[in-house]
């Protein structure tokens, strides 16, 4: 057997579509249109049908909202890490800031969720960007460490100064009108975020972002301020995170210091690794897999982290490209053995 294997090798052949260059498609038949749209439809319809399918399981509907919260964070993480070159562990900061702003607006000024969520999203993203602005010249792991410092620091400050309700948090917020509104709001945001960002990274501005990541000197020499684009990247990620945080506050009708939690900084990375970095959709898929596992393991307490570590190690060792990259390859090419 092994002798036979030696004079064969795996060949990869593009399939399905006749003309396919990077992102430019020449579509000529229904079969090809279907071929192109099918994966997108699976994702869109899958997410849109999920709340209906889960009607009998309210607990899992809530988990679905959680998946969306993490998915928004993970999309932002993937975008920042793989298109702007900033590895940000600031997920907890975005969620906390978004949640607290929404909570304050709701409890102090009596504003309804359809006002607090957009305001908290934009104002929170602005605030997070300003907070992270001094760290933007840092690279790689240094930026990661400093960005993790803020979500660790914020709860201590709130505790020490006993502001914003201190350790009790801000309670008694308005919820969303119904579970359906909550579910479809979150799902809509995730779908819009993932497809809008996928579009943006292929536009000219996406090339500037990639330049900032791979070749910042050349970008500077082109008369473009890299700090502006890094800040813009952080703002985009923070918009997604603060949106998720504001929604979270209204879902639980509560904002508290646990919303600066470590999970919000860590799970997005794990999801991006599992799903496939640099694809944005992979980040969503990663959350769809990891968040329910995390829920199932809730009884095990902190042992969850150990299971996470195992899953991550497994992926890094056996499928370091991530699910999305792997599946895309299988979908677009078929492999066959050829004699050498």
């Amino acid at each position, binding site marked *: 057997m092994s002798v036979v294997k030696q004079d064969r090798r795996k060949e990869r052949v593009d399939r399905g579509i006749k003309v396919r260059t990077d992102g430019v498609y020449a579509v000529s038949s229904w079969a090809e249109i279907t071929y192109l749209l099918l994966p997108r439809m699976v994702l869109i319809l899958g997410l849109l049908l999920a709340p209906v399918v889960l009607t009998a399981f309210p607990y899992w509907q809530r988990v679905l909202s959680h998946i969306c919260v993490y998915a928004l964070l993970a999309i932002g993480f993937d975008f920042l890490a793989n298109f702007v070159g900033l590895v940000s562990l600031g997920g907890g900061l975005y969620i906390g800031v978004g949640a607290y702003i929404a909570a304050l607006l709701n409890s102090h000024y009596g504003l309804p969720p359809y006002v607090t969520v957009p305001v908290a999203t934009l104002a929170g993203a602005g605030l997070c960007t300003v907070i992270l602005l001094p760290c933007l010249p840092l690279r790689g792991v240094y930026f990661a460490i400093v960005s993790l410092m803020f979500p660790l620091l914020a709860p201590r400050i709130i505790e020490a100064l006993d502001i914003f309700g201190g350790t009790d948090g801000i309670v008694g917020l308005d919820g969303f009108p119904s579970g359906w509104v909550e579910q479809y709001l979150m799902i809509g945001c995730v779908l819009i975020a993932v497809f809008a960002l996928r579009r943006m990274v292929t536009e*000219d*501005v996406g*090339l*500037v972002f*990639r*330049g900032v990541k*791979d*070749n910042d*000197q*050349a*970008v*500077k*020499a*082109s*008369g*473009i*301020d*890299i700090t502006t684009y890094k800040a813009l990247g952080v703002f985009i990620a923070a918009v997604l995170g603060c949106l998720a945080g504001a929604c979270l506050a209204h879902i639980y009708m509560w904002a508290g210091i646990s919303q600066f939690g470590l999970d919000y900084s860590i799970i997005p990375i794990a999801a991006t690794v599992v799903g496939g970095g640099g694809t944005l959709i992979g980040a969503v898929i990663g959350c769809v897999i990891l968040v329910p596992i995390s829920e199932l393991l809730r009884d095990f307490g902190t042992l969850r982290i150990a299971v996470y570590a195992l899953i991550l190690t497994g992926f890094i060792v056996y499928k370091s490209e991530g699910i999305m990259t792997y599946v895309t390859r299988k979908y677009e090419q078929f492999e066959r053995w050829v004699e050498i």
Partner: protein
Amino acid sequence: MSGEPLLRVEGVSKAFGGVLALSAVDLDVHTGDIVGIIGPNGSGKTTLVNAITGFIKVDHGRVSFKGHDITNWKPHKIADMGLTRTFQVMRPYYSLPAFKNLIVPLFSRRARRTGGWRGGGKMGSRDTVAVDILEEIGFERDSYVPYKVASSLPTGYLKRLELARCLALRPEVVICDEVFSGLSMSEMASMVPLIEKLQMEGITLIMVEHRLRELFRLANRVVVLNFGCKIAEGTAEEVMAYKEVKEAYFGSEEVLTYV
């Protein structure tokens, strides 16, 4: 040469740890000049380019461009004023096709203001403008080189791509850090007229070079650096007459005959 120089460098010094990479260098560049900068390896040429274009902060001295003091400005602001540079170690976006490399400079504020290259005011699609610029600078459109991925291009094209990045900003000054080195004889033969064309179009050039034969044909003034000091300045013949230059720069007779 009269009137206010376009670019003026006054007493610029820069030390890296104990190494004095530049010590009190002066340089005046007037509109339309091609100024050559030569000197042995490690004499501070690239450091001078970095100091002028803001890629390093200088310790002492002053750089002014079009009457503005631009000392220690950020590189992107200096490029935005029209003072651009190429990199000795080329920095293309290797994973992108050649013409996509120009999208980033064409996205800059300056390119939007100036219309990029000769577009004049309103720019067309950036892709079209990018291919036009590349064709202008010797990427034959018919042979599909503008569409080839940068990592597959030979040095000659990558050097041109460096120049193209500057041209996309419609610069007033281009500082070329060794655009001739690493080129084959035929690539060089087509690069020289290209530089002459840029000068004809009103671009002021500063050329850091080791290839003296080509440089001396182009430059109307040459500056010699050694150990971070300016040791000579003048026309090619004047500079070559300096005793210090012969000693410091050429050392062996072979190089002299090559020149």
